[in-house]
């Protein structure tokens, strides 16, 4: 049996997958909590345990993410963009474009038939387009991140965010609360602003037929629906959007090592 592991040690969450052939046997997700080494060890052990395997069963480990360099095992490192590209192609073979809304950045990647990166636009200077802004506003509104999507879809009067900056957006959100705006409308307004930003990124690499969304932002149904409305296209959403990068890391590790599976 050829068991491969993929680790995506992100700034916010750490993710691991165990793959055998074309099948994801197990996965694990937990907060990185600023302790990347501990997170990497624990998240890999959890996934191994779920798959009833031990570390010695693994033939190769692929890794990506901001905290990858803290992984204490030998691994093959790949870029986050390549991993998302390969991972999403594994999950949705027909996909041409993937939108990844992560904690630190949002990326729009054009994917080749083989799951490689044909083009990509990255918004990592400004938190306003990334998952970080969702966390900031959730804190302002004193709700859990997971509640945002459901609240957003209930809105019938989204507030208009006049700024593209997350710091100013926080101030704006506080002002809207003071004015009595509903939480639903504030969140929907935020989603609208993010969707417009993402749409402009997609336009830079030109729209394609099949689009998917992944990363933490893909778990927010309100954001997904708003992007769909703005780009006038249905989005494919993985069952577990957080693990697409880890899947890609595992697949690329095998490619790079030249091992025949």
């Amino acid at each position: 049996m050829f068991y491969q592991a993929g680790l995506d040690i992100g700034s916010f969450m750490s993710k691991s997958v165990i793959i055998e052939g074309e099948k994801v046997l197990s996965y694990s997700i937990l907060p990185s909590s600023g302790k990347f080494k501990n997170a990497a060890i624990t998240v890999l052990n959890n996934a191994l345990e779920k798959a009833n395997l031990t570390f010695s069963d693994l033939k190769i480990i692929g890794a990506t993410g901001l905290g990858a360099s803290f992984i204490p095992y030998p691994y093959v490192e790949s870029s986050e963009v390549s991993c998302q590209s390969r991972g999403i192609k594994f999950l949705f073979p027909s996909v041409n474009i993937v939108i990844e809304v992560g904690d630190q950045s949002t990326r729009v990647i054009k994917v080749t038939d083989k799951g490689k990166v044909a083009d990509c636009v990255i918004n990592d200077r400004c938190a306003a387009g990334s998952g970080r802004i969702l966390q900031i506003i959730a804190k302002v509104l004193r709700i859990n991140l997971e509640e945002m999507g459901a609240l957003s879809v209930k809105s019938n009067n989204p507030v208009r965010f006049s700024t593209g900056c997350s710091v100013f957006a926080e101030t704006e959100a506080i002002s809207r609360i003071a004015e009595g705006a509903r939480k639903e409308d504030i969140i929907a307004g935020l989603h609208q602003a993010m969707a417009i930003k993402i749409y402009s990124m997609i336009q830079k690499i030109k729209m394609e037929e099949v689009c998917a969304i992944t990363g933490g932002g893909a778990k927010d149904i309100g954001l997904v629906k708003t992007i769909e409305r703005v780009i006038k296209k249905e989005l494919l959403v993985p069952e577990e959007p957080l693990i697409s990068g880890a899947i890609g890391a595992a697949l690329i590790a095998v490619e790079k090592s030249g091992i025949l599976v």
Partner: protein
Amino acid sequence: MEQKKKKTSSAKTLQTAREAGNFGKRILASARLAAEEGKPVAWSMVDWWLGGTIAKAIGIELCYPENYGAFCAAVRKAEPFLDYAENDGVPNTTCGYARNGIGYTRRLKENNFIIPEDAPGGGMPKPLFLLGCGAVCDARYKWFQSMGRYMDVPVWTLEFPQTGVAEFFMPGYKEENIKFMVRELRSFVEFLEKLTGRKMDWDNLSERLDTTFKTHELAHKVDLLRKSVPSPAVNTDFWAIMIPHLYLPDDKEALAFYQRVYEEVKYKVDNKIGAIPNEKYRMAFAELPPWHTLGIFDEFAAKHGIAFAIESWNYHAPSPLPESEREGVNDPLELIARYSFHKFNEYTPTAQLNCMDPTIFTAPYLKWVEDYRIDGLFCHPLLSCRPATYTLMHLRNLLMEKCKVPSVVVEGDIVDLRVFNEEEAHVKIEAFIETMDHYREIRKKEGFEW
């Protein structure tokens, strides 16, 4: 654990490139010495119209605020000058060189024109006048005018015509332009004579021109050698060796230096020695470099095998002026006009062939990607520079449409370190590797030669 200190400057691959920085130091030292001896000193812009050569022929020593800006950035000492200019109301979207120059000038003035002790590289002495020019950039007018006001010294702006591709092919266009340029240069000579009380030394000017042509010809030959695979020299080498050909092309030492550069590069080509050990990808760089972080290109080379085979059109010496242009021209000013016209228009036929405008900052790259077998373009848009930025999107589209060459965009600034995100650059380049692979396959399928 002890953290290894990250190197911000480039190690450079050519021995001659490592020595080129001495020319920059010499420019500053010569200007200070001249000032001490009571000789005339001026601050000049990059010498595209050879106005600096004319000034030198009359006995004026020059130093260059643009070069000084790049130097301050490279040693990471530009920020105090940028802040000082911004504190005086200069917007932070103004050219990085300009802000550095204005900040320095403000400090110089406030120090009663005694060079501040902590001035990087020893600093620039107060000039007798400022020599500006409108080539490629609009901030240049106002920047030099502003410094002129701070110091209460005259500013001369050399203004030459730059028109579109269609106009270039209009009958009589070239000769009319040459006539205009000669008139402008003659007025400049009159200005210098009046200002300094000296007479132009025309023989000295002709001799300097002759040396300039020879230096530039060698610089151009080095560019041609760089078409070789593997690339014998890379962008960080070029940005060092360009100092003598941009600022001192009329200097005998610069000519001798360029002979050595040529020999070093030729040796590497003949022996198939690449600038980087494992060249996998050949990239072009557009347009102005992040002077504060040139070491990042060494990291790209080590990590991904990227050789930047060609870069920055505006810094390159033009191809030699055809003999037909030189025949029967005895007036050195006309020769300068013809040469400058040649520099700014030599890629116009390429632009016409591709039905595009403008020529500068775009057309050269269309030729280069094929000649230098380029896999990808690194675009460095600057928030503070419209001329070197607004063409980039156009250029990216053209390269993709006509040559299937992809590009990656990393924003930054020539001088201002505060707007450059090194990590972002690494992330984008990592992702771009696969994109270059992808388009290599596409070019192969579509019958491109590289």
